[in-house]
């Protein structure tokens, strides 16, 4: 501190409590203003980004989809989702409002952390027809093969879920409900299989019930 500052400091009386509180109050108030305005300014863009991301994922796992409806589980039945909800499924419709299938998400603790996956489900075939990893922190080069590895992804072009999905050693897949695991990433592969089985157990019943209540949907299925 220069001598000049030193002298002023010694002569300055101790600031009153009012001054201290006032400073904090003003700082808090101004900060609050800035935060509110930046939040309101960016919120539309952020929401649009999130919605777009979700839309892209759904379109990816349900080929041919152009639009979708959102449902949640209430009392064991599918109900149209109104506000932001935790567990959701999406009913996909193509450009002619035909029924393309259901998009279902599931998550499960994996090797490192929780893995989140979205799949497209075709009720008539009882099969999964699309697959995308939404969140995964598995070991790069090994576990994270569940994201991109072509051999593994090929499992999900038509994976029957009835009675349940079974993980088999790489190269030994014979049945339509079996998944060829990734060599060297057994736990990550098993995580995906368990995750899907759990998701199916949770949603298959309500989905079937919903389709029974709305038979017109089956008729508009363009997907064979």
């Amino acid at each position: 501190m220069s001598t000049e500052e030193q002298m002023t400091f010694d002569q300055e009386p101790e600031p009153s409590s009012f001054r201290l509180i006032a400073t904090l109050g003003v700082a808090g108030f101004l900060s609050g203003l800035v935060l509110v305005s930046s939040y309101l300014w960016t919120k539309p863009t952020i929401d649009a980004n999130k919605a777009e991301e979700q839309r892209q994922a759904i379109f990816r796992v349900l080929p041919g989809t152009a639009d979708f409806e959102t449902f949640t589980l209430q009392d064991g039945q599918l109900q149209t989702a109104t506000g932001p909800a935790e567990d959701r499924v999406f009913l996909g419709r193509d450009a002619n409002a035909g029924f393309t299938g259901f998009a279902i998400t599931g998550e499960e603790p994996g090797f490192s952390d929780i893995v989140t996956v979205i799949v497209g489900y075709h009720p008539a075939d009882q099969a999964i027809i699309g697959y995308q990893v939404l969140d995964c922190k598995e070991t790069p080069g090994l576990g994270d093969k569940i994201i991109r590895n072509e051999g593994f992804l090929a499992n999900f072009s038509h994976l029957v879920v009835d009675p349940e999905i079974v993980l088999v050693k790489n190269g030994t897949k014979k049945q339509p409900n079996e998944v060829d695991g990734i060599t060297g990433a057994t736990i990550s592969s098993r995580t995906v299989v368990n995750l899907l089985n759990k998701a199916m157990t949770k949603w298959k019943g309500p989905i079937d019930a919903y389709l029974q209540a709305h038979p017109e949907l089956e008729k508009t299925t363009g997907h064979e």
Partner: protein
Amino acid sequence: MPTCKLIPNWKKRPAMSNKVIGSQNMQEFLKGLWKENPVFVAVLGMCPSLAVTNSAINGLAMGLATTFVLIGSSILVSLLRKVIPKQVRITTYIVIIATFVTVVDFTLQAYFPDIHKALGAFISLIVVNCLILARQESFASKNGQWRSFLDASGMGLGFTFALFTLGAIREVLGNGSLFGVSLFGKAFEPWIVMILPPGGFFVLGFLLLLFNWSAQRRKQRKMQTA
């Protein structure tokens, strides 16, 4: 070696002698880049340095975000330094820094969602980066706006440089790529551990070792020529 220092005694002023004001200001800017580099010399701001430097672009982004917060809050603190009472200064600095960080967080989330996803919660953790609070406490609260700006930019760019170096090394070794562009083709067997947490510790440890070694060599040479 003490790490998180909020005490100003590590801010070494260059020898005053007959330096012109402009050159002295340049010193304020330059010191943060190398001689007093926040990561390699003062070992500040460790958490983000290691967590988000698993790739060059992430390191760069985090460095720039931190620099923005540092410059903004330094200028503001310097503007208000005569108004903020000593007793509540730390709290006020934290409020200022937290506001800047939240704004940066929202901006990244809206306009650079991929980077926001990659950096995650570590953007918010910029607020507890010892570097920023240390610069307010030891420099911005005692100097004018222009010099605070220079100090903040120097430190911020030095920090960014350090993070980028860390990220680049880890990405090249651990993924065989730089900025996502594959460098060595398929034949390269990536040294995966480098992009995992242990790699972060190792790379920074070895870089510090190199810094120490070069500082020692310089000292030895000085003693020999003396």
